[in-house]
């Protein structure tokens, strides 16, 4: 009963936050002269008005889902990995390197699988740098992961303009990846690729692991009360390291799947899927299935926003504004319910 209440209150917070933000944005746009009904229909048309548009929204949800899971799995264990952005980039650049200058001969699907895994590992290794700094030098993960994002941007920029640079252009970008290193497309005529399906499978698998295994239970206990976990003899440090590796691995895989599935190369322009992942995780209340829904929603928000720009001339940055507002609204909603839940307890002690 109380479990059901807790779960439904989580959904209620998300739905309430979304409704509140949509209302605020619609009022704002109405003041600028855009009728709310037009905005909504245009947005929906852009996000899911045709199979192609819907496929685009789902494709956009793929990396958001993976970086959202990356953030959630770490946050649930009390490990504040804010570095999905950097881990995403490191995974992406690893993939591009093996897709352009470091081509390995052999059967395409096998090499592709190996390189995807390798890219995930590179993201994990980048994340574990932060864990190492915390273990040996006492640097808080929440700081080092943010700073490592900047370093990752610089490292990738250097590689893109250096060893991985496309010699046929002066633009800061890599060459296009070889065809056998690209992820297969699922729906003809779109760029909805296999990586998105893998992301959904990973979400369900992660949910099962967190809910149904001893390791998932340990992750939960370590996240909620590390002191008690230590006293109960749980491997607290090992779980924190594991969670950081999985988190970085998911972000690295997200980057690799994005370049191998959509762009086919890396350029100097920022992507920001890593930071958006934190928003997705919060909106999904750190629950893998909630994150699946949140990623789809934010994917539609993003493609719908570009529709608004094309048809109504509203800058597509609105999508980012809405995303930021959503996170704020969810945090405020969560804070309110947490205070309400604590109140009777504070009185009884």
């Amino acid at each position, binding site marked *: *009963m109380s479990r059901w209440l807790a779960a439904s209150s989580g959904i209620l917070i998300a739905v309430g936050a979304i409704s509140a933000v949509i209302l605020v944005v619609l009022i704002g746009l109405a003041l600028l002269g855009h009728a709310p009904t037009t905005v909504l229909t245009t947005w929906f048309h852009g996000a899911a008005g045709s199979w192609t548009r819907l496929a685009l929204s789902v494709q956009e949800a793929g990396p958001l889902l993976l970086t959202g899971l990356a953030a959630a799995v770490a946050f649930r264990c009390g490990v504040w990995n804010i570095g999905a952005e950097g881990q995403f980039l490191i995974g992406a650049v690893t993939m591009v390197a093996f897709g352009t200058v470091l081509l390995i001969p052999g059967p395409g699907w096998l090499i592709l699988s190996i390189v995807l895994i390798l890219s995930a590992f590179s993201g994990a290794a980048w994340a574990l740098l932060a864990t190492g700094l915390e273990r040996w030098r006492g640097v808080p993960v929440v700081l080092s992961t943010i700073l490592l994002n900047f370093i990752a941007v610089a490292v990738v920029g250097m590689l893109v303009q250096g060893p991985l640079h496309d010699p046929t252009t002066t633009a800061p970008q890599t060459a296009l990846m070889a065809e056998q290193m690209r992820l297969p497309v699922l729906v003809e005529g779109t760029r909805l690729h296999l990586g998105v399906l893998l992301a959904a499978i990973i979400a369900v698998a992660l949910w099962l692991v967190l809910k*149904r*295994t001893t390791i998932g*239970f340990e992750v939960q206990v370590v996240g909620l*009360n590390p002191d*008690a976990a230590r006293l*109960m*003899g749980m491997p607290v440090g090992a779980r924190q390291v594991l969670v950081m590796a999985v988190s970085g691995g998911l972000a690295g895989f997200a980057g690799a799947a994005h370049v191998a599935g959509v762009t086919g190369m890396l350029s100097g322009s920022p992507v920001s899927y890593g930071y958006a992942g934190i928003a997705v995780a919060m909106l999904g209340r750190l629950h893998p299935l909630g994150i699946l829904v949140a990623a789809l929603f934010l994917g539609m928000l993003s493609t719908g926003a570009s529709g608004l720009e094309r048809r109504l001339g509203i800058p597509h940055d609105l999508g980012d504004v809405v995303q930021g507002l959503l996170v704020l609204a969810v945090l405020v909603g969560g804070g309110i319910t947490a205070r309400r839940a604590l109140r009777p307890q504070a009185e*009884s*002690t």
Partner: protein
Amino acid sequence: MFSLSGISKRFGAVTALAEVSLTITTGRVHGLLGENGAGKSTLMNILFGLLQPDAGSITSGGTALRLRSPAEALRHGLGMVHQHFALVPTLSVVDNVVLALQSSLGRVDRAAWSARLRQRADALRWDIDPAALVGSLATGQQQRVEILKALLAIDQAGSAQRTLILDEPTAVLTPPEVDELLPSVRALAADGVAVVYISHKLAEIARVCDEVSVLRRGRMVHHGPASETQERLAELMVGSPVSHPARPACPAPLTAAVRIAARDIAIRIDGRTVLQDVTLEVRAGEIVGIAGVEGNGQVPLVQALLGLLPPTSGTLTAPSPIAVIPDDRQREALVMPLSVAQNLALRRYRGSPFSHHGWLSPAAWSTHARALMSASDVRAPSPGAAMATLSGGNQQKAVVARELDGDPPVIIAVNPTRGLDVGAASAVLERLVAARDRGAAVLLIHSDLDELLAVSDRVLVLHRGSLADSGWPTCDRAAIGRLMLGGLPLGPRAADPPDVDGLQSPSIPGATS
């Protein structure tokens, strides 16, 4: 002159204060002595307007007062200096005073505040630089700033009468700083302040106080001059020896297996010695009690025994894992948002029937939880209810149920009855005795001396990181009280022959020295 008479205060079923009377006189230092939980803070909170008494009256110079808030108490000249300072180290002395006392927005007149500060300090012959950064001052100096702040607050409230409550003022001071503080307290009294000096350090009370009151279990058991002997005060504080039946000597035969063995353990943290020369043995079938005022090394001792804090030197043999009932159940033993069933399985989730090859079997968790809940009388709506929804007593029963599940050979319990009502407390103690009776080695670290003596077979006393054998049950409790307070050292007991008369007429080791 303040007078409290017949003050009573109950919290639910617990009587915190029963008909307590106290008179505080201008120009005198009044010591208030009592163990943890004796009711000192409740009494002071009533005097300070934070709590309302259920019965009794407070009068000042013959007129009855109703103190409903600290501000009201301040208007009657009552100020308090807490054990932990409320100072901002990065601000200057005068800025700290302004921060605390200037309530309205507007220009800060530092010169005026500095002058007032200097004037108060000069009256006490204290040398304080109002422009100095608080963080650069020694702890003793910071404490003076706190006292001056309290005095200026009283001045500001416009009271001619001044009463200052010092709550364990020496708890955070080094011995030389204590030597400096005590004359300062006398200076306060000479300046016309009525001082209430809360402490459980007998030597200080004797040095600084004019008179002393002793609180024990919510009752004022003694009023008198501070010249009372320290033995007598210790006895008054911890209770009379006749109220406890003599216990049988250690029931564990000396041949019983030693389950915990520590030899000459020392622990240093950041160059500070927190534990030294600790030698301890706990055998199967005995409860070894460790008495002591909190903060004398209990935390590092437990951490060392649990393997969380390796000793700097010495040898330690302890099994792993050890069943433990920690001091702070919500922080160390329970995961409040998780269900009762999940909390009860925290020790055993890794094996059958709770999980198989790493996959959980939730049905077994519920069955297990129901069994423990009914066996240990843990009252919860269902095994799926969040631990946070249970009362404190039921939470503690859940911890005890989990830790004693499966008959562990070694148990460590730290203040296991803290915050529990009488019924729940005795249920927890009975579980420990039952565990001892079936052969467990139990180490009980407890700040409630009555309960400790009621269940322990042997009692050691921890003071300033050192363990001393009290000789219990052949010594009397006043001796334990003195050891706890460090008021009087023990005589050289080791050379003494076994005291055959000990049971008939409890001797007080070292009392004649």
